[in-house]
């Protein structure tokens, strides 16, 4: 009860820096290049779409589209290089990376969030179905939402998807760009696979961003119309406590020790 009288170690309105300027700029560059790459790349997949026809079927527009696509690719690669160097060379970067490493808990968390949201286990439990099973495995009851560390499973999935996607796109794209080099090294049938991979991976990335990322940072009623972290980099103590409880407790613990 004594705690109530003294000021809390982490106030609800205390501001924490979740993304520093470098991280925000990396993210901003990613937005710009990703959007450019999608807009200049999709016409090659949906070449019959009237919208693309009306934009790219005039004069040198299609040629300029190609230039823009490759220019954006180069900027994206530079962005990735910056990110890798930043991650390796700074304390904060290394720390972030450590937090980003996937663990078994992430898989469990995803299952738990889904189970809690559906609420079927609780419903069955209340009706007395599978009492013994739930007594032995309380996890499957999905009684409460999981607590997240600095990066939750959604963010980790997006981060690692981006890494995987970038590697695939840069490699296949490079050989599509330098087609003569590619065909000096590989047979045509393999080069054809690069083209297929580049197209499908692009579709996957596009859909993932449009559906998954846009929901989580924009349309989700919790953050609607938009989480502002990518702009100001800040989250409040309250948000830290509710959205990243494990990180919150870690900070709390540190401050207690410092007292």
């Amino acid at each position, binding site marked *: 009860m004594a705690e109530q009288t003294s000021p809390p170690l982490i106030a609800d309105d205390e501001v924490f820096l979740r993304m520093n300027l470098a991280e925000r700029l990396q993210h901003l560059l990613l937005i710009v290049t990703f959007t450019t790459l999608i807009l200049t790349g999709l016409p090659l997949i949906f070449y019959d779409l009237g919208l693309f026809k009306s934009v790219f079927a005039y004069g040198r527009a299609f040629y300029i589209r190609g230039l823009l696509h490759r220019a954006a690719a180069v900027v994206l690669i530079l962005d990735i290089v910056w990110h890798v160097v930043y991650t390796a060379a700074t304390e904060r970067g290394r720390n972030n990376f450590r937090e980003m490493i996937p663990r078994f808990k992430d898989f469990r968390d995803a299952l738990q969030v889904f189970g809690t949201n559906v*609420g079927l286990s609780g419903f069955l439990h209340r009706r007395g179905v599978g009492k013994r099973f739930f007594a032995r495995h309380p996890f499957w009851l999905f009684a409460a939402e999981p607590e997240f560390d600095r990066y939750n499973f959604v963010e980790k999935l997006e981060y690692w998807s981006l890494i995987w996607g970038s590697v695939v796109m840069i490699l296949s794209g490079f050989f599509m760009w330098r087609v003569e080099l590619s065909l000096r090294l590989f047979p045509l*049938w393999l080069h054809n696979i690069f083209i297929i991979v580049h197209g499908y991976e692009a*579709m996957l990335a596009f859909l993932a961003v449009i559906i998954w990322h846009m929901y989580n940072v924009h349309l989700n009623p919790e953050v609607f119309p938009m989480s502002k972290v990518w702009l100001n980099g800040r989250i409040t103590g309250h948000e830290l406590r509710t959205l990243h409880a494990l990180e919150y407790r870690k900070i709390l613990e540190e401050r207690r020790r410092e007292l």
Partner: protein
Amino acid sequence: MNRPAFLISVILALGLGYGLAFTSPSGPAALGTPAVSDDDCLTCHGDPELNRADGTSLYFDQDKAQGSSHGQAGLSCVDCHTDLKATTDFPHAEKLRPVVCAACHEDIYQEIKASVHDGLEKKQVPVGCKDCHGTHDIRPADDFESSVSPLNLPETCEKCHAEKVKTPRGGEFIRQYEASAHFQGLMKSGLTLSANCSHCHGVHDILPTKDPASRVARSNIIRTCGRCHVGIEKSYREGVHGKAYVKGSGDVPVCTDCHSEHDIRAPEDLGSRVYATKVAAICVRCHDDERLGRLYGFLTSRLKTYFGSYHGTASKFGETRVANCASCHGFHDIRDSSDPDSSINPANLPKTCGTCHTGAGANFAKGKIHETPAEMSGNRWAQAVKVFYIALIAVLISAFLLFIAADLFRKVRLKWLNKRRPR
């Protein structure tokens, strides 16, 4: 004194002499000398004001006529208007017998009689010599002023065929010629070798296209175009299309199937049917035809597989610097890939691809250019990668959507519960 004038004066003098010597009306005719001289005609027709009741002119322009072929040859009025030869009563009857050119030009008359212009199709009115050649100012074709000079012929033919006399495909079809490279060559560059109407259709012996003897009939068109485009005809006859054409195949394309008939333009012309980005549409009229594919044993889905490639996609957006059908397959002498001279024979592919892709090597031949889903055996790995990605996308996106649905489901449920239980 120039020659025609001299001749006329001689004729006049002789005529006058005979007229004085013989008073019998049958006298001059019997002697082969017209009783009616050109001067007699000109007494009235030399007046520029002389008009018919309906206002049309009856004036005979002597200067013009003297420059004509017949004027040069010294023909007199009544040599053609023979029914006036023995006329003494002037003014003569308003309606004269038609001039019979065949009296002298018998051979040409025979050609015309067998041609479309003699009303071969019976529905049409026969065309008279004067419709093309004019009347008093008929000039040889090499005279710039002649209505049948190469420079004037298109206009002369269009006088009827653009509007009045519709050929089976209409006047618009005829006028397409004016956009053609042939017309430009003729009118802009003044090359009379550039094809005009008669180069392709003939002169007096024009026959309807559907007549197998016509110069523009399918059976003759190669020869007709080849009269000028000799090298191209040679090339065509060496390719698969030409070889089948010689055997009488009705399926292979002839010149006009790809280049059109009147609207033939240079391939660089945006309106050309063989413009870089339009070639594919021409080729697949046959090469995406299942019936022809089965008959001749070629693969269809060529357009789909072309547009699916970067070459085809870029071409669809109007990019001309990418390969179209002709870039790889050639055009007039397209050969089967099994032919060692074929540009797409695997042995020649590096060279063919190398025209754009500098330094192209043997790897260009190791795989398919036209990949179709049906050719799974051609590239199993490609198929496997496609299936993998489609499955991955389907599973991941479904999972995302399911997750989002569950999230929204709970949020709506909680909101609803909170409303029911006011705190």
